[in-house]
Structure formats: C-alpha cells, structure tokens
C-alpha cells in the first residue's frame, strides 16, 4: 500500500464488514505542527477487548479464508515510519474509532493519493452505507456527506453512473479549493 487513501479504503472495508451503517473519515493536516491525522469512526458492531488487543497482530484475522490480517498492521507501519502512531478504540455493540497520526513532512510519509477514487469506490461497493468525509487543512475545511446527495436526489440510486461521476468531481474540486495535494 503506497498511498494513505488506499489504507483508508482498506480499513473502512473493516467498518462495512462490521455492519456499520455510517462511517466518518476525517483527515486533518496541520502544517504548523507538522501533523497529518486520519480518523475513521464507524457505528459497526465493534470489538471485544480480546479482539481489540489482537488487531495490530498481522497473524490475527476474523476471517477464515486465510490466516493473516494486514489492514491495520500496514496502516500502523505507515504511521510509525514517520514517527507517528495509531490508536484503536472500540465499544462492543456501538462502534470503532481508529486514529493514525503522521508527521506530515516526514520523508517516509506516504502521499495522500486519490481520496475521490477511494470515496467513490466505497460508495459503489456499499450503496446503503452513509459516508462522511471531512478534510481540514489548517484553517480550511471541506466536507462531503452521502446524506446530502441522498437528500437532493432521493429518487436515484447513489451508485447511478452520473451521480458517482458528480461525486468524484465534487470531491476533487473541494480538495483542490482548500489546497490539498494528492
């Protein structure tokens, strides 16, 4: 995984598999304190304390088709490579929150990548789940919420080809406006 947006796509996939109906992705870039944080919060079924302890272990997975689980370990590695850290908090039955902190200007900090492609891929694969993506860069802020789209165009599935193209372009423009580089 070479871009933060790919890690995000991957880790949010855990949320959708945990039965979440709503996922929030928050990225904040603080150029003054040289920080980039990625926060993912879902309302899925959460993890019990024993599972939570094991989630950084690459040889732990809840799946049966293979015996490794690299999603969170790889995000952990990406954060650690910049002198950052990761924390996972979960309450069984109510949801999970992951926060990864990066040193923004560290040479090993992976580029953000294409967040518009990540969000649209998530929507395509999870039509019924609501996604909110907010990106803050210093004082500037951009937010996208699938609920806004559903409110404006309730008659059309959100995965309709033209809606998806609209969303992709809207996110690209929104990020460009607040000066986010992919």
């Amino acid at each position, binding site marked *: 995984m070479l871009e933060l947006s790919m890690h995000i796509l991957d880790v949010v996939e855990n949320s959708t598999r945990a039965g979440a109906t709503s996922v929030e992705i928050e990225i904040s870039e603080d150029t003054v304190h040289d920080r980039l944080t990625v926060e993912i919060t879902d309302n899925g079924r959460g993890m019990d304390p024993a599972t939570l302890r094991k989630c950084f272990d690459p040889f732990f997975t809840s799946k049966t088709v293979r015996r490794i689980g690299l999603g969170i370990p790889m995000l952990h590695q990406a954060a650690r490579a910049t002198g950052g850290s990761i924390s996972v908090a979960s309450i069984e039955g109510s949801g999970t929150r992951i926060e990864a902190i990066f040193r923004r200007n560290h040479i090993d900090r992976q580029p953000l990548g294409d967040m518009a492609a990540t969000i649209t891929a998530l929507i395509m694969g999870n039509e019924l789940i609501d996604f909110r993506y907010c990106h803050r860069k210093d004082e500037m802020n951009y937010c996208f919420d699938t609920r806004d789209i559903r409110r404006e165009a309730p008659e059309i599935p959100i995965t309709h080809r033209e*809606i998806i193209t609209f969303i992709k372009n809207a996110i690209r423009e929104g990020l460009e406006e607040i000066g986010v580089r992919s």
Partner: protein
Amino acid sequence: MAKLTISDLKKIKEKALSENALREGDRRVKVTVHMGTCGIAAGARDVMDALMQEINEAGSTDVVVTTSGCMGLCSREPLVTVEILGQEPIKYEHINGNKMRQIFKRHVLEGEIQRSFVLATGQEKTE
C-alpha cells in the same frame, strides 16, 4: 463554495429520471471487484475506477457494480467476477485498468468471455 453545485446535481437527477432507466429488474450483469487488503494493494481501486469510467462512457444502465472481500487467493489479485444473469459467474485474475476495459467492452457488453484472463468459473466463499 465548490464549482459543482446542488443545481448541477438537480440537473443530473432530472436527466436520469427522464431516461426512465431506473426500473427494478433491469439488472443484466453484476460485476464484482474484489477489494480485500490484497486486492487494494494489487490495484483493485484502479480497476474499479476504469470500470466506473467504462459504464459512464457506455451509458450502461443494466450493470450492477459491487465489491467483495478477500477470498484467499491473494496472489491472483486483483480479481474481478462477471456474472451475466442466468450464466455461471466468471472470475478473472491479475486484472488492471486496461484489462478491465477490455472485459467490459467484450464480455459485459457483448457476452464474449475473455479466456486469457480467466481464473475460474463458479461461486466462491469470501468470509
């Protein structure tokens, strides 16, 4: 304020509704892009991107796109499954954006299975 506005969205909505292409039961093909950790690391998002572009360009209204997790064949990723209604699902291996475009044009639209990319036919288990 972004240049793309709510009024743009409304225009899309009206156009989509006038196309009258939203009837249920209109789903002829289901395309699944496998998006586990392994799939994503191998380039599944580019495959999804190419697929969405093709659907948009072709104006297809009867193709459903979905994603699934890892099925344990991580070394064959990115995997794509094409299932035409009433036929056995076809699983393609080592797909990239260009192969996805070819599969879309030839298999999804014209029904011609792209044998050189096929991994297997039939259902799998992903959990």
